[in-house]
């Protein structure tokens, strides 16, 4: 009698504790969950250097090299770029509206993101406007193009190669820019290699190609590290955007009137 009860109890316990009640990465995947931050934003560089402000006369500002300019654009997209610059020039200096950065720009914004790992999936939630990237590890093909409504963050599939996470993303809308106002097409393709190191940091090597818009792919490297004491906050640009354009498209000025 007692033995039967014990057996039932044992079976019940093993069912209970065997079940995957807590979402966690599969045993062979590295645990990358937590809050991560771009190490090379202005503020992070200031903190590392123990500076309060950048010394304008210093050559030691560790600002990285050159950035890509409009000369990477194809002829057709250079025209699109110049038309938009001309339009912006009509607005008062400083006018800016809010909007989702999308990929790739959300990856270089000066606010952290958090990574969640669940079976077959990695989810990245950005502090910036709570944008979300869903990386499907249980799919090895992108959605067909007629199913893929072009989006700000694209359709991402991913897989692990040792300590490196590869993410392949397509399916972008044209409501975003690559950076420095560079336009792109719906053909943009982003390939990322997330190389994790032993000290809870990662170097993301990102290759951005666009056969319609860029003469050559853009390659950039971004470094992030885990921030165990940080919590994700909210960032909503529309909350109090005093630089918003008014009815004439001019900056309200942010001044008290």
């Amino acid at each position: 009698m007692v033995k039967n009860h014990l057996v039932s109890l044992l079976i019940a316990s093993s069912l209970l504790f065997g079940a995957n009640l807590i979402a966690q990465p599969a045993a062979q995947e590295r645990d990358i969950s937590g809050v991560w931050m771009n190490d090379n934003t202005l503020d992070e560089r200031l903190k590392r250097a123990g500076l309060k402000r950048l010394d304008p006369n210093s050559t030691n500002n560790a600002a990285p090299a050159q950035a890509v300019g409009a000369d990477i654009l194809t002829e057709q997209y250079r025209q699109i770029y110049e038309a938009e610059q001309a339009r912006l020039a009509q607005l008062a200096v400083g006018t800016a509206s809010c909007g989702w950065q999308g990929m790739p720009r959300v990856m270089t914004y000066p606010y952290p993101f958090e990574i969640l790992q669940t079976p077959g999936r990695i989810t990245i939630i950005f502090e910036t406007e709570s944008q979300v990237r869903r990386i499907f590890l249980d799919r090895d093909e992108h959605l067909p193009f007629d199913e893929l409504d072009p989006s700000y963050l694209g359709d991402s599939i991913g897989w692990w190669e040792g300590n490196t996470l590869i993410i392949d993303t397509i399916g972008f809308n044209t409501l975003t820019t690559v950076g420095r106002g560079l336009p792109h097409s719906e053909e943009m393709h982003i390939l990322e290699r997330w190389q994790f190191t032993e000290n809870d940091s990662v170097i993301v090597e990102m290759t951005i190609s666009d056969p319609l818009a860029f003469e050559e792919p853009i390659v950039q490297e971004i470094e992030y590290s885990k921030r165990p004491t940080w919590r994700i906050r909210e960032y909503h640009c529309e909350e109090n955007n005093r630089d918003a354009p008014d009815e004439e498209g001019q900056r309200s000025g942010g001044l008290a009137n």
Partner: protein
Amino acid sequence: MLNLRFMIKVLALSFSALSILISSIAQGHHSFEMFDRDNPIQITGEIKEFQWVNPHTWIQIMVNEPATGELVEWSIEGRSPNVLVRRGWTRNTVQPGEQVTLTIYPLRNGDPGGAIITIEKADGSIINADTPTAVDTDEEGPR
């Protein structure tokens, strides 16, 4: 399954990789050009309000204009609270009624506004607001 990954690898390798290191391909939230970065000024007055909101924090300060003797409200913008809080600021770092001196980059057009550099409190302590200085980091996000 194997085909797609292989194809992607082949494509990735066959690009004549223009390996330019960019830590932040960026277009600022708005141009910093409207501020005169070559000629910072100081303004002194009483805090009317401190707006601890995104995308910019704002300090509203009542400044005595020496020329006219009247009180003018200046609007001084700063970094996002999301940045400032990780540099030691809180929503209470600046309080209405405080007498302070702000060092700012003023608006080029002469309007009563600017971008904050530092704030000096009545007790003499100075807090940095870290508006980017002469180095144009071309960083993402509001300045």
